[in-house]
């Protein structure tokens, strides 16, 4: 009894500021101890059934030569690492990985940079608060739209001959009147998808960073103003350092969403023309559900999954740190 008490006291002392144990005292649970486990257990079981089970199923089939016929007959043979070898030597898959890197670099990264810039410009330079909120809502609108509709809308706008976007550029004299840019050609299709992505998702970092900026303490800025600090100095030495974590979290959320996002590709180009805008996730879907090469699709899915697992582990570690720091403050 005594030992248990001192042990729990020592445990509490070892991690006094832990975000998950702070202010939480043990031993006053009134309900039966298994009730909380049931409350958490149901969602966990559901997630095991719809996420973990499929992932394990895929891990098994990544080493089999499963295809449509064998799924019907229930017969497949073990082929070792062959499916992974096929995936990693497949030019189509490898070029899609290159597409993904370009898409994340110019998509997700650009969105965060633009979002931060726009949020800070909006907050600092627009003084009328009604106008500011109106602009904020208008800028954030694209994020709430269904990605499938955004894809269809931009497919319509980016038509080469009578598309609205080309003619907007012509009317603004950014493009010669006789010229037409074929946005969805094999040369530009991935750029077009990146453009649409930037249009839709810059709003997310913008909204997050704007809200973060609103919640910064005004006293610090007052002090900086009294000290005569220039706007550039305030931005570099106060605003950005204080928003560092929020910007990082916005980047993490956007990056992981972009990593798995194929709606625009699926709606606008279907990977084409001639596979120029395919992303790894899209190829795995096609292989698995359209071509029924389940073994190869499983290997590709697992490669995608493994990279995501590494990234998510790192990101969640960082997020844990940020949340703990917040709970102390």
């Amino acid at each position, binding site marked *: 009894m005594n030992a248990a008490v001192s042990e729990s006291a020592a445990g509490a002392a070892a991690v006094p500021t832990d975000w998950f144990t702070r202010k939480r005292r043990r031993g006053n649970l009134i309900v039966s101890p298994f009730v909380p486990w049931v409350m958490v257990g149901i969602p966990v079981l559901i997630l095991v059934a719809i996420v973990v089970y499929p992932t394990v199923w*895929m891990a098994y089939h990544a080493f089999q030569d499963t295809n449509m016929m064998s799924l019907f007959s229930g017969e497949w043979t073990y082929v070792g690492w062959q499916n992974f070898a096929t995936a990693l030597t497949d030019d189509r898959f490898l070029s899609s990985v290159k597409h993904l890197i370009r898409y994340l670099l110019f998509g997700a990264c650009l969105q965060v940079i633009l979002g931060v810039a726009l949020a800070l410009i909006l907050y600092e330079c627009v003084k009328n608060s009604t106008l500011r909120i109106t602009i904020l809502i208008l800028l954030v*609108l694209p994020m709430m739209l269904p990605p499938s509709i955004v894809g269809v809308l931009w497919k319509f706008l980016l038509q080469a001959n009578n598309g609205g976007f080309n003619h907007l550029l012509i009317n603004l004299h950014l493009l010669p009147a006789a010229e037409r840019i074929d946005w969805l050609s094999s040369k530009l299709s991935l750029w077009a998808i990146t453009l649409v992505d930037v249009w839709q998702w810059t709003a997310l970092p913008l909204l997050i960073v704007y809200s973060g900026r609103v919640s910064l303490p005004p006293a610090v800025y007052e002090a900086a103003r009294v000290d005569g600090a220039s706007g550039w100095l305030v931005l570099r030495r106060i605003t950005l350092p204080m928003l560092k974590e929020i910007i990082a979290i916005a980047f993490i959320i956007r990056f992981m969403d972009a990593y798995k996002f194929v709606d625009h590709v699926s709606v606008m180009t279907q990977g084409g023309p001639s596979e120029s805008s395919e992303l790894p996730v899209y190829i795995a*879907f096609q292989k698995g559900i359209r071509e029924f090469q389940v073994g190869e699709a499983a290997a590709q899915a697992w490669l995608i999954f493994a990279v995501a697992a590494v990234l998510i582990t790192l990101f969640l570690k960082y997020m844990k740190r940020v949340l703990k720091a917040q709970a102390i403050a």
Partner: protein
Amino acid sequence: MTHTNYRLVKTLLLLFLGIWLVFTLFPLYFMIVTSLKPVEEINRMIPTFWPQTMKVNNYAGIFADPGSLKSLVDSVIVSVTNTALSLFLGTLAGYALARWIRGVIGENLAFWILSNRMFPPVAVIIPMFFLFDSMPWGTDSYFSLIVLYLVFNLPLATWLMMVFFRDAPRELEEAAYLDGYTPFRAFFKVTLPLVFPGMISVAMLCWIFAWNEYLFANLLTGTTVKTFPVHIPTFTLGSQTLWNLVMAFSLVAMLPPVILFIILRRYMVRGLSLGVVKG
């Protein structure tokens, strides 16, 4: 000198903001305009930026078309059921994680649940496709969509409800216990009202994600059940797409999330940032 510099910089920044605003709004404007045009005007070589013959009969056409209406109803059924399920399960689990299951186990459990939301769904959907295909209800059913949307909504709801419950002071609950409340009653009478704004934001986010979902719906359903994103390709007849109907239908379908967002923007920032930013 520095003063003029400052004003110049400020003007340039505002100009950039203005350009971005135009870039953001132009597609939406063009969408509305297109939805009001007859199809002949859309197919011209030079698109008109203001409709020469304005008509609202595209919208009348949408509401007279049983297929379009059914797809909207299907979307409502799937998204509302999924949201209710996610919110119910997420609230209970979030409460347990915030109050009772703590320490290393609770922490890792919470982050594991959240990590499910971030994984690419590619490893999920291919096996589930074949699993549901072999089940009596098949892939093309409300059940399959409602269950699969839990993949992204259940982790989100659980995680966010946990964050909100952690913010609600435990002392009030303990006071209720001292007054003789049962844990059940204390939960409903004391804690739940405190996290009610949080529940609204979780419900809205889950609903918007379920409403907007395209990939699962496209791969699994299409005949018996047809959510609105899957319905849009049916406006293409042969080689001609009836863009006026596509745009009118899209505007009808995207209006609910937009209105919700404008009304409940304040409550959504916290959820969108996974609880990090207190909006």
